[in-house]
């Protein structure tokens, strides 16, 4: 008998290990083992435990109720237990509802239902895992499979919709949106300072999120409060996002292949004028230059002082209102009809179309071209993924390959990436387990897209006149579509593109190796190391063949850089239950990191005898005009930490941690800092009294935590050191020859006392589930304080330095988050679930430089728009108040304005200038500025509804909203002639504007100005919006069909991203301020 027993033992252990490989040793497993004592009895019951999909469940615990007899299922889900027929068996497994079955004489087939009570889910908490039930902090788990129908292209897409996380929006082909958790902690923003720490399969991940294929992700855990995050101390002040990739399931190998296609269209961007609107606009523009009083004292076009005869800029068809005939019209003013000229030509010349001869000629010929259509396109996105996974007795594997090729809606905006992931875990011996995880990515970086930049000196072909041609009569692209010459000649992307070439991207290898040794007395030792290699290459070619270019500034850029980082840790975990009720988990970690970076850059210019070889040949470059540079960096970090979890009766839980962190960037003086945390929770629903009193309460839990964290994300690891940088050369004459001296200048003022920024935070939470789990949710209240902020303390620039990096200031974030999940309808053929999230964050700057005025009030930093008692992003500006109308010309003139210009509220009247006749003239300065709101949305909410019909057809839609924020904008002033753009006949964005005939109190006149003192005063806008982010449909083909084709499962999906927005912003998309896209997706997913 003993013999049998022994043979079971290792097998059971292995099963346990297999589980632990992915999620470490969880307390419940340990307890399960302890609780089960195996004794051989005469009657044996055999059976098999399966999940709802019919897959075997490995490692489920089967116990005879009321006895100490128990066992665990094997790899095929089978068990064999000594029990008498008729005994009650209790089957339990993490994530599944416990089930009682009566043992019969036959083979038992037990199907476990998945537990919608997510409390028993295993959550990754950093250097280990915990049952969600045991958590003392605020942790959110995201299951990517839930939104698989949407074909999320990025990890950000998975995260969007999590309360407390603010995910940005990026319309580009690559779509790399920003992430922020619970408000902006710090005024320092460089180096991704306010972004959460990323953890990939247990190790800090310093790559970019695009390296991780969403298809490979099994689960994401977001640590929101300081106590959970404190285990990551140094880098976790802005929260932690823990990504766990998929692993193989035992059974036959699974092959999964998916393909997704999307049509990407422009959903929002400002339009430009078409040809007739363009002419009308030009007419209005020039008429606007003649504003003034006429002889009768009325204000309008063609004022008496303008010297421009009435009707001069008007079209010849439009003269009756001036009492003119065409002949009179053609002979007045400075530009008059020439010999043989048409009226149309005269009109065009008066509107200065002849400043751009191509425009002028095409206008007369009636030829137009749509530059806007030539700029935007419908992009096609493709995303293909394949994976193979499986597990055997001792080895668990998962391998995937994905290829993504995206086209943005702007011509030339392309992105592609190859991603693969290989994961292998092997149990070598009973006590040793090893794993490896290799992540590979090759991605493009940047492209040569049509530029939408709108400063006048930047190339932007949408501004070309609608009369400017793209090709000449022979069909060749025109270099200067506007006037045919290099100056103010306009820009044709398609012409320039012929002389450019770019090959730029990253190749990344992220690896994780781990070893786990099970030691006696419940101690587990782990060693993890994650070397990361990143190679960047940039090959850019600008041909000097580009007509009218200067070879001295054209040629090839060749740049490569290499990052080699590693982080390693030694972890000891000791997990022990005393007297059944006292559960301890102790974790001790020692950690070290080293980051190295090398960058080489060559800018070869003026390559002779020919640059026909593109960026493949640079030896012929003119050395004086070329450049080479390097930039290498090296930084190190180290940490020691300890964490103790104590649970009593599975109802009372406490977690405490302490961590000491060191980082080389923090001066010679303060590399080390200590962070700690304490958290507790109480599952009051488990109290017998509560159970009795509130039978409808399935679960209720209160949590409270407090912790401190640091922040070391910096723009530059050498920020605390003064630098001397090369500022080029100074060349003297030495006996007629050039004497070249390499200059050095100091651009950064060092600060040897720079130290860690610290964030401390408390969090109070409440989790609940009621009505048989139909309604569940949680509420979290938090308050964070960041002090010793890494700050660019502003210095008066006449010191030679505009700032110094130092530790100052204090910012608070407080708010609450509310999550609700409900199963509205659930029956055999129809299920409707709703999940909603709401978060509110209040951000307040408490201190800046601790610099007080005579009254003891701390001073604001107006230049950065930082104000004590106000949020980061506070808008402090002048307040506009409509538009001066014609009747108010005299008042407007006092402050050098005209009707059609914006009125500005004169909040401070004490400093008004009083003229000798007693007239008060407002003086506009900082005293007239007021607080107008914040640019960062305090409110975020989202709502998602899912419908499942006949189990195989799902439909869902989700929307999200940012609310309560505002922004300033100066577009309404229509100051369009910067860089003489109007003079040179360029087009502008379609717009409304004030004219004497069509006056408005919202839009200003063309070329409007603010009053003296704030001539470019901006206007305030409400930026709140709601976006219907996604609608998707998914359908799993009937298995009876697919099985015939030897396919396990075939699912087809269709979805639309960014369906619409509700907002009041008129200059494009409310979230990006400009361009946004809408994608129509189609996908198919096949499992073999």
């Amino acid at each position, binding site marked *: 008998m003993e013999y049998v027993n022994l043979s079971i033992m290792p097998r059971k252990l292995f099963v346990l290990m297999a589980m632990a490989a992915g999620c470490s040793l969880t307390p419940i497993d340990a307890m399960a083992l302890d609780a089960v004592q195996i004794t051989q009895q005469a009657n044996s019951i055999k059976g098999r435990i399966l999940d709802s999909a019919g897959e075997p469940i490995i490692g489920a615990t089967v116990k005879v109720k009321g006895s100490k007899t128990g066992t665990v299922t094997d790899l095929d889900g089978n068990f064999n237990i000594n029990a008498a027929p008729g005994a009650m068996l209790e089957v339990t497994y993490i994530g599944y509802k416990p089930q009682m079955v009566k043992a019969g004489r036959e083979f038992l087939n037990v199907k476990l239902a998945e537990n919608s009570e997510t409390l028993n889910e295993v959550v990754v908490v950093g250097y280990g895992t915990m049952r969600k039930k045991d958590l003392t902090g605020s942790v959110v788990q995201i299951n990517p499979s839930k939104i698989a129908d949407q074909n999320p292209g990025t990890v950000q897409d998975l995260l969007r919709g999590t309360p407390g996380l603010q995910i940005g929006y990026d319309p580009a082909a690559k779509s790399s949106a920003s992430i922020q958790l619970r408000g902006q902690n710090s005024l320092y923003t460089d180096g991704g300072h306010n972004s959460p720490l990323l953890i990939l399969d247990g190790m800090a991940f310093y790559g970019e999120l695009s390296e991780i294929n969403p298809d490979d992700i099994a689960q994401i855990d977001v640590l929101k409060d300081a106590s959970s995050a404190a285990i990551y101390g140094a880098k976790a002040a802005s929260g932690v996002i823990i990504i766990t990739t998929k692993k193989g399931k035992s059974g036959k190998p699974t092959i999964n292949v998916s393909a997704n296609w999307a049509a990407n269209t422009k959903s929002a961007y400002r339009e430009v004028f078409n040809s007739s609107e363009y002419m009308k606009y030009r007419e209005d523009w020039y008429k606007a230059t003649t504003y003034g009083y006429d002889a009768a004292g009325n204000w309008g076009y063609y004022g008496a002082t303008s010297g421009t005869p009435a009707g001069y800029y008007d079209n010849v068809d439009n003269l009756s209102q001036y009492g003119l005939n065409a002949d009179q019209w053609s002979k007045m003013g400075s530009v008059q009809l020439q*010999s043989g000229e048409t009226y149309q030509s005269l009109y065009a010349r008066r509107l200065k179309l002849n400043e751009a001869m191509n425009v002028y000629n095409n206008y007369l010929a009636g030829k137009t071209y749509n530059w806007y259509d030539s700029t935007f396109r419908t992009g096609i996105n493709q995303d293909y993924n394949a994976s193979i996974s499986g597990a055997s007795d001792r080895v668990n594997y998962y391998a995937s390959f994905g290829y993504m090729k995206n086209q943005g809606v702007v011509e030339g905006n392309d992105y592609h990436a190859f991603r693969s992931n290989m994961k292998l875990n092997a149990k070598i011996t009973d006590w040793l387990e090893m794993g490896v995880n290799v992540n590979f990515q090759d991605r493009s970086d940047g492209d040569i897209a049509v530029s939408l930049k709108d400063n006048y000196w930047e190339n932007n072909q949408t501004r070309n006149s609608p009369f400017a041609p793209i090709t000449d009569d022979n069909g060749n692209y025109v270099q200067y579509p506007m006037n045919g*010459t290099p100056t103010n000649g306009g820009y044709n992307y398609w012409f320039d593109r012929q002389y450019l070439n770019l090959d730029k991207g990253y190749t990344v290898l992220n690896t994780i190796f781990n070893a786990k040794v099970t030691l006696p007395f419940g101690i587990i030792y782990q060693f993890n190391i994650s070397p990361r290699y990143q190679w960047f290459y940039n090959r850019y070619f600008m041909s000097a063949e580009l007509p009218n270019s200067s070879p001295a500034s054209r040629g090839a850029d060749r740049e490569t850089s290499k990052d080699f980082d590693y982080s390693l840790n030694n972890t000891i975990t000791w997990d022990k239950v005393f007297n059944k009720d006292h559960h301890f988990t102790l974790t001790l970690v020692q950690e070290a990191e080293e980051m190295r970076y090398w960058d080489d850059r060559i800018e070869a210019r003026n390559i002779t005898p020919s640059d026909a070889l593109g960026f493949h040949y640079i030896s012929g470059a003119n050395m*004086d005009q070329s450049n080479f540079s390097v930039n*290498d960096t090296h930084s190190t970090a180290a940490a020691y930490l300890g964490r103790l979890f104590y649970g009593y009766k599975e109802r009372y839980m406490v977690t405490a941690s302490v961590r000491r962190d*060191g980082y080389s960037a923090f001066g010679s003086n303060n590399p080390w800092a200590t962070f700690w945390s304490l958290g507790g929770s109480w599952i009051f629903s488990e109290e017998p009294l509560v159970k009795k009193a509130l039978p409808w309460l399935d679960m209720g839990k209160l949590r409270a935590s407090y912790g401190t964290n640091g922040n070391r994300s910096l723009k530059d690891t*050498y920020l605390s050191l003064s630098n001397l940088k090369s500022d080029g050369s100074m*060349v003297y004459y030495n006996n007629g020859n050039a004497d070249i001296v390499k200059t050095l200048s*100091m651009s950064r003022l060092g600060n040897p006392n720079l130290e860690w920024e610290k964030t401390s935070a408390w969090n109070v939470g409440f989790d609940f589930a009621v009505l048989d789990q139909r309604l569940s949710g949680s509420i979290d209240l938090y308050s964070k304080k960041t002090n010793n902020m890494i700050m660019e303390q502003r210095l008066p620039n006449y010191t030679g330095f505009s700032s110094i990096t130092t530790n100052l200031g204090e910012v608070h974030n407080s708010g609450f988050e509310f999550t609700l999940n409900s199963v509205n309808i659930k029956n055999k053929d129809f299920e409707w679930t709703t999940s909603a999230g709401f978060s509110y964050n209040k951000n307040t700057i408490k201190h800046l430089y601790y610099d007080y005025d005579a009254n003891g009030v701390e001073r604001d930093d107006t230049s950065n728009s930082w104000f004590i008692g106000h949020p980061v992003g506070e808008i402090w500006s002048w307040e506009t108040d409509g538009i001066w109308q014609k009747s108010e010309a005299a008042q407007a003139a006092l402050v050098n304005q005209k009707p059609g210009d914006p009125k500005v509220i004169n909040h401070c009247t004490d400093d008004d200038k009083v003229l000798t006749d007693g007239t008060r003239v407002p003086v506009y300065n900082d005293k007239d500025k007021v607080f107008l709101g914040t640019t960062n949305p305090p409110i975020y909410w989202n709502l998602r509804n899912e419908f499942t019909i006949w189990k195989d057809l799902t439909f869902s839609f989700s929307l999200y909203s940012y609310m309560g924020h505002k922004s300033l904008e100066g577009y309404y002033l229509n100051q369009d002639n910067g860089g003489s753009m109007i003079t040179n006949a360029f087009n502008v964005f379609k717009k409304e504007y004030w004219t004497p005939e069509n006056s408005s109190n919202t839009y200003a006149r063309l*070329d409007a100005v603010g009053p003296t003192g704030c001539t470019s005063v901006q206007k305030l806008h409400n930026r709140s919006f709601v976006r219907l982010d996604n609608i998707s449909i998914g359908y799993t083909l009937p298995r009876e069909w697919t099985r015939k084709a030897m396919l396990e499962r075939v699912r087809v999906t269709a979805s639309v991203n960014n369906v619409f927005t509700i907002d009041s912003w008129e200059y494009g998309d409310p979230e990006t301020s400009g361009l946004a896209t809408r994608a129509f997706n189609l996908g198919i997913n096949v499992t073999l």
Partner: protein
Amino acid sequence: MNYISNIFKGSAAFVMATMLVSCGDSFLGQDPLSFYEPSTTYSNEAGLKSALSMCDKELKTIIMDGNGNVIPMASNYNMSDIGLYAKTDMGGGFQDNFDAKLTPTSGMNGGGDANAMQRFWDEGYTGVKYANTVLSYVDKAQGLDDNTRNIYKGRAYFHRALRYYYLTLQFGDIPLVTNIITKPKQDYKSTSKEAIFKMLVNDLEFAVKYVPSQSAMTDIGMVNKEACLHLLAKCYLVTGQYDKAEQTATDLISNYGLHLMENSFGTFVAGNQKTWPITRNVLWDLHRGENVCDPANKELIMPILNFNDQNFTGYSLMRACFAHWGNGVIKDPSGISPAGKNIARNNADYDENNDWVRSIGRGIGCFRTSKHYNQAIWNVDGTPDYQDLRHNRSVGNWVEMEDIRYTNKKSPYYGKNFQLYATQDYVDGTGKTIVHKGDLLCGDTIRSWYPTPLYQCYILDKTAEGNLGANQFNGASTGSNGNLYLFRLAETYLIRAEARFYQGNTTGAADDVNVVRKRANAKHMFTTVTIGDILDERARELYMEEWRQPEMTRVAWCLAKSGKPDEWGHTYDIKTWDKQEGTDRTGGNYWYQRLINYSLFNNGAIQSNGISLEYKVNKHNIFWPIPNSAITANTGAALRQNYGYDGYSESTQMWTNWEDAVADENK
């Protein structure tokens, strides 16, 4: 047993791994790889030299920013007697009404098409930092003897003095910074301009003692004793030490082998000789970048170097300053416009005999000259002096609009000279009168009709020259020799003339003015001069070379201090010359009086090309406002705003003794 041994092995691995990264502070040591640290790098002469060379390099970047239509330098002329902003399509950014537009919070820009006034604040203090870098480290450097150390100090003092000379004359009472701060300081008080000038005199007296004369140096472009003397003479004027100013100027004129160039020399550089031939003459050669540092050039005191690809900044002098002759507002007498065109050499219409863009540049008229400069000051007894080489059309130094010829091939007037008014009716083939006699043929005389002192501003645009498709010849571009004068002996004579004038020696002053005039072959010689004559001579001689507004401010200051009358007999009170407001005709200061008497300022609105412009200045605009950003960044104390601007208060404390300001910095 095996189990145990494996545990042992595992533990050993753990211990080893721990030791491997045993995290002492040495593991966390900082390891700067690709940049120098100041304390180690500035510890020897090579380091100091690299720091000092930044000062030399910045001489040009103050006035050039490498791009833009409006060169930064022009901001020193927009509010002067001889210049006006002229970019008429600038809309609200047009720089005419400084009275209304120039405030501490708006009106001053770092560059771009309006002005670069803020740039002079920023770059001025950047230059001060470069000089202070040398001064802060020079005593710590090893292996230098005292004399070498003093040469470095002297050169740095020169650079700092030059920056403060202009900063003070542009911005009045300003914060005085004399070292590299070692901890944040935000409680600067302003130092009075009088006190700053006393420090400059002190520093420059040190510099002239130690900095070697050019004859003892190998490099041209480094600070020499001559430049220190020249600047010192100017500073003596400001501080009222006229005798010392005269002596210093005399010393410089007499003892360093310098003399005005009298004859043609160096390399002959010109545009298209077939279109606009230049007869070689001394002033043409003197102002070519190629000749600034020619060993034969004995008039050079110190250059601004801009000749080598490794240190080159574009300077679109011709583009910014020359009339916008090639646009649609100019029509020919038959009504065809544009009458003047920029035609590239690879264009079918190209005609080498009518190739104006290569001869006189592609002006876009952002900045123009006043009538006082381009007409009044050349008149002798009512007729223009075209004999003066600086105003000489026949040798090609000076180009009137009427010298340019129509270049539109469609025009029946092709190749004929520009004319401002139609001299006869033009009747087309159908008998229709297109142009009437007397019609104005230029729609925008502000921007597109004024003469050009070509000899001063012509720069061979090498990049455009090398590109047959180029129809823009803007000024110094890559490959060009863009050298300019920082100081030139002709100005030393004019400084001495001032020194003599303030001492009452108007005939001696006339002698100095005549030296400059004689070399230029001017018709008229003075027997006695007014301060107006001296400033007019500066305008003739130093156009786009001197910083006109600051120099006028200096003269206005000196005049008030000396109590001497101006050419109209007005005297100014040193107590009030910089503390008056208003736009009326009386009072103010000498700068203000010249602007309203000699230029378009404060004469009401004018029309050009259908746009109403009003050139206006206030008496208080003599100094530009202290930028609001400088005031708000100085949170611990109030900077003093200049009189007349929002925020000015007489009660704002300032240092009136530079030593106190320096002591405050070091406290």
